């Protein structure tokens, strides 16, 4: 298994909070919660990080363990779809437990 960091940011041009329909917000929370539960159930989510500043451009980071880069890209696409984030995939090349990265 290889480890990747998925970084979710606000898409370009959405710097302003804008208007979020309340029903849509609830739907997004539910969909994203289901997606993350799925990630956990399959043991793919190793850890996550959230910025202290809720208004930061970087919204969340996930550390995932998957077979290869294509699988990481698929996860990134799925996360982007449920969250609306622009997701960047970064291969992790080192690990605290001494596991081999890419």
């Amino acid at each position, binding site marked *: 298994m290889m480890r990747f960091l998925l970084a979710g940011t606000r898409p370009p041009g959405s710097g*302003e909070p804008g208007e*979020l329909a309340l029903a849509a917000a609830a739907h997004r*929370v539910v969909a994203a919660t289901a997606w993350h539960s799925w990630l956990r159930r399959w043991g793919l989510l190793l850890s996550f990080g959230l910025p202290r500043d*809720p208004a930061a451009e970087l919204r969340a980071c996930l550390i995932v363990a998957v077979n290869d880069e294509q699988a990481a890209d698929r996860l990134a696409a799925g996360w982007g779809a449920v969250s609306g984030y622009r997701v960047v995939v970064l291969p992790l090349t080192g690990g605290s437990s001494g596991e081999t990265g890419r």
Partner: protein
Amino acid sequence: MSRPEEAALTAAFRAEWPRLIAVALRITGDLQAAEDVAQETLFAAFDRWPLQGIPDRPGAWLMTVCRNRARNLVRDASRAQERLASLRPLLDGQTSPGTAPGTNAAGIADDQLRLIAMCCHPLLATDGQVALTLRMVAGLTTQEIARGFNLPAATVAQRIVRAKRMLTQHRIAFVTDDADIRARLASVLDVIYLIFNEGYLPAEGESLTRGDLAFEAGRLACLLTSLVPAEPDPWALRALLSFQLSRQAARTAPDGALLTLDAQDRSQWNQELIADGIRSLERARGGPRGPLLLQAELAACHATAPSFAATDWAAILALYDELLAIQDTPVVALNRAVAVAMTAGPAAALPALDELAGHPALASSHRVWAVRAELHRRAGHTAAALADYDRALDLVSNQAERHYLAQARRQAEEAPA
């Protein structure tokens, strides 16, 4: 999570939205900033809850994040300008823990009330009051409001911007004393009623109802009664809207056609809303018998009648007499004429309708012609009925009502002389 959980979360967001705006507004003193902070709070929930889990008390979580964000915003702004105190005179009062208004349940409720009063400020144009209330208090997006009113989103956005600008230009204070708020209660009730009417019987468009707007108005009325439970008029409005909304599902046939009271399937009436209407009416009866209470009493007569035939028209007529005595408008007179027709027959009501047909306030309305046409038809005056149906059809702009009138005209024409 399932759809019920999504619905529960939506309800929680809806309930929290005006509280968030109100608290952020108290801290920042600026409506636009308050809206941005409330939005950011929702975005924060969206970022965090899927990963950290939905908190046990979502409302408390949202409130904490919102308050912190608002305080940070004020702090950042004040640092940048190096004149913290002049930014918001009330800041000192806010930063004193435990004594700041808006930090406990009662304070937040007061802030919500002040927010509503601010959105319905008499300086604002009516369309601005409506748009601002729906955005700030009901939490509808500009798009949703625009859809509700069949308007371009840009028009609604313009109204909201104009209203905010007006509040800023005239330095309309969020903080005001209770007497001011109570004085503005009438305009708040007017705005909610206007939103309801627009949703319940839109003047234009294809469908008979814009249900979302009507139910938003019902929700706002409920909110108002929770904020000023000792005031009778909000209870009267809540009762009236609950009774009216209870029939929402029964007012249209599956093909979208209008169903009048006599044709509605009463088993489809929402008993929960009727019960809420009855309870609210009881609370409202503690106050003076004003127009809202009388209208609620009228709605109760219909909502609690087991069948159309069993409707207590004599009581309805007495209520209209009472209403007309304090609100002598052609619309009330028109409705009273219907009650006269139901108690004493169409011929007894036609003279009043003849008079109303010439009233300038009803000149552009199809209703007086539609009612007179119906009464002429029932009295056997086919030619007069057809002429009045034609006038009504010339004036009506709602398509569901047009179809109803056209069908009624056909039936009058085909009826044996």
